[in-house]
């Protein structure tokens, strides 16, 4: 029966960040999650906001804040502090970033050879943000690694879509040692091979040999190590004598694994406890307060008693919500009311244009409390009012809401 000041439910960017900030502020924190969350599916960078006519994340947040019911209407003022705190926190954990809310959004390439707009990236990906002058872009893929096809990506990027991009874009596939003998090759396998100094030396020799003469900036799949990625990235740049950057891969995302590890270490270093792997199976309520939640452990639930609870279980993609047969959405942990469009709007011809169902979520007050409960804060993708795919505000809302909740709970603790 662990007791804590705050129990955070959910281990995505929002939950991890909120738990880290609470622990840093001296609260006792227990983070409970049913499994690893969306960090392992993401590019590892920071998408704060994108909007037409907005040149920086700050400007884009301003645009989104004017949209009806958007979380940034409440949280817009917290974004800068939350992003700065995230950059300081991850840097302290050995995962530095480049960029800020005032940096220009620029087009950076994806593994498929499409473009996305970004302003803040982990240092390993940051060279993609620098303006293109006279050097070409060399995309490197690895033979037998099927999640990043460099020639295909180069062809897409070279098809006239990239206005401010490099003049010369090429893609090469490099044969790295041993890979043809491996039965199973994904981003994780490659990242672990890069951690091995002997293999890495041979791999670097093969990579260097594949770089043609001329001035290049080199893009590689985001597989350059996990724990030692900073040194490995530096070693790659030194070996090829050029700037190199990582492009996020398909899941499992090594960049996302690094982010998860960095935040987990920050929580634990600050005395927070984490138990991932068991869902919340029961909630003990007294009137408008939760007194405990039960994490479904072996044979009997683990009772987590706390003064406050933070719900960071995500939206539909993160399985924080589930569709009911009656055409409504159910919030899966606390049973909160989900504000959602009517069932006939759940289906749309194109899932990638703003989808009505994306806006589904929990309505909260300024302290991020839901209507039903006084000692609960809702953060991250569970909040109503976003079109995350179009607005690309998922990370920014996660950070800003985590910060708002942590700061509010810390104030409440100090007052009590």
């Amino acid at each position: 029966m662990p007791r804590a000041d705050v129990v955070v439910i959910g281990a995505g960017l929002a939950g991890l960040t909120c738990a880290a900030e609470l622990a840093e502020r001296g609260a006792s924190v227990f983070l409970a999650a049913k499994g690893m969350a969306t960090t392992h599916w993401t590019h590892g960078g920071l998408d704060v906001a994108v909007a037409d006519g907005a040149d920086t994340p700050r400007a884009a947040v301003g645009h989104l804040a004017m949209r009806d019911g958007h979380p940034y209407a409440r949280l817009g003022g917290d974004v800068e502090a939350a992003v700065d705190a995230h950059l300081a926190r991850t840097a302290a954990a050995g995962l530095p970033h480049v960029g800020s809310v005032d940096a220009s959004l620029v087009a950076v390439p994806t593994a498929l050879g499409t473009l996305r707009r970004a302003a803040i990236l982990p240092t390993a990906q940051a060279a993609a943000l620098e303006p293109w002058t006279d050097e070409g872009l060399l995309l490197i893929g690895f033979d037998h690694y099927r999640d990043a096809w460099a020639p295909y990506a180069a062809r897409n990027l070279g098809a006239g879509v990239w206005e401010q991009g490099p003049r010369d874009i090429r893609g090469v596939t490099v044969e790295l040692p041993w890979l043809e003998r491996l039965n199973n090759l994904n981003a994780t396998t490659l990242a672990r091979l890069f951690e091995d100094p002997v293999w890495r030396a041979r791999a670097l020799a093969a990579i260097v040999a594949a770089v043609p003469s001329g001035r290049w900036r080199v893009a590689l799949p985001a597989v350059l190590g996990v724990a030692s990625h900073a040194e490995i990235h530096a070693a790659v740049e030194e070996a090829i004598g050029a700037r190199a950057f990582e492009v996020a891969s398909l899941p499992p995302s090594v960049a996302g694994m690094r982010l998860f590890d960095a935040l987990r270490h920050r929580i634990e270093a600050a005395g927070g406890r984490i138990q991932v792997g068991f869902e919340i199976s029961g909630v003990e309520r007294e009137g408008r307060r939760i007194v405990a939640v039960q994490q479904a452990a072996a044979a009997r639930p683990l009772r987590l008693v706390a003064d406050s609870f933070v719900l960071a279980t995500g939206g539909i993609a993160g399985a924080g919500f589930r569709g009911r047969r009656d055409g409504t959405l159910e919030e899966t942990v606390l049973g909160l009311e989900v504000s959602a469009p009517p069932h006939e709007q759940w289906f749309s011809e194109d899932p990638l244009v703003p989808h009505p169902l994306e806006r589904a979520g929990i309505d909260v007050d300024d302290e991020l409390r839901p209507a039903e409960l006084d000692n609960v804060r809702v953060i991250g993708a569970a909040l109503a009012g976003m079109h995350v795919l179009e607005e690309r505000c998922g990370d920014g809302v996660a950070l800003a809401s985590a910060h708002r909740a942590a700061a509010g709970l810390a104030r409440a603790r100090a007052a009590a």
Partner: protein
Amino acid sequence: MTFRDAASTDFPPFSTDNCIKCTVCTTVCPVARVTDLFPGPKYVGPQAQRFRGPSVVEATPDHTVDWCSGCGYCTRACPAGVLIAETNSRARAAMVDTRGGSLRNRLISDTDLLIRLGVPLAPLANFGLRNRLARWIGEKVMGVHRRGPLSTFARRTFRSAWKREGGLTDLPAGADPARTIAYFHGCAVNGFEPELGRQAIEVLERNGFTVIVPDQGCCGLPFISNGLYDQARRKARRNLESLAGLARAGVRIVGTSTSCTYAMKAEYHEMLDLDDADAHAVAGATWDICELLVDLHERGQLDTGFGPMDEPIPYHPPCQLRSHGIGTPAMDLFRLIPRLRAVDSDHDCCGAAGTYGLKVERWQIAQDVGAPLFAKVRAAAAEGASRAVCDSETCRWQIEQSTGVDTVHPITILAESYRRADAAGREPWRRIV
């Protein structure tokens, strides 16, 4: 099992329908991290499951599932609730059922038999266990790696010593079941580490419990790990028969092996399909000893008169403990001991995984899985730690064998700490009524 139950996604093979192919499980797999022989939990689990029958009685199409060590990290990482490790254990069992288990696996799983043979012959058996030539022969003939982590046999089993001293084996008339503990010693205490059993009883009695040691045998976990489910069920049923009555009477069953207690809490049900009232009663009554002590502490009932232990200890929470979902109770208890400096290993798995690290073809994998842990333990020893701590016996033996650093159960530390307090002349602790 009814069709309705079987069709539920709580039934491990059907839970694979929930897989969203995100591959998170593969990123946390300790075995896939070090060898390409194992394609990872997703491939042998949710992917391969599509080619197996719904009840997994048909053999698996792919034998690589046998490289799974059963640590359970995949199940705990899965965001979609897929019971990956449990599905893979069943797939291995189906495979063993079709192909037959090797003589080696049948023998090293049968710890009751090994203890029955080894303890009476302890001087000879232990000579063999320590003798290089004998171990070399064991490797060539039996496939048990010459440097595989094996403990030496005790001169007398814990049970026989307990009985000879007239220890209780059943709930005494008039005893309060809530203040009585049925101690599940497991094979490790019975045949190899009886002193740990003594320490556990000392700690429990100090906290006001009457301890009984009911009839019991191997929990069956080694058979489960080796896919020998029929043998495992026989072991499980014997324990359920002797323990279910006590569980129903309200006696808690407490073990010092996180592996045995996890088998009784979860695996009898999730792997062996033992789903009757006895299995549920025993599961609900089973506690890990550190879990129980932390629970007492949270109720204000733990004797916290711990004497100071001025030493650093590297502590490794074993995989089976993590499957319990009870956090790391040993670390919570260590915080109560003055001057003890316990540091969590922050490493996933020691590699031993019960019998996995003994097998000649897997020994190196087990070593590679545990290598970062061994480096941490050696570094701690170089900085003055005289021993490491871990809750599970085969993990302790693996850490000892691989680092040369003595490795003990958390209860050993607690028992010593209590004794130091006594030596310092503190008031004997009063029983909580």
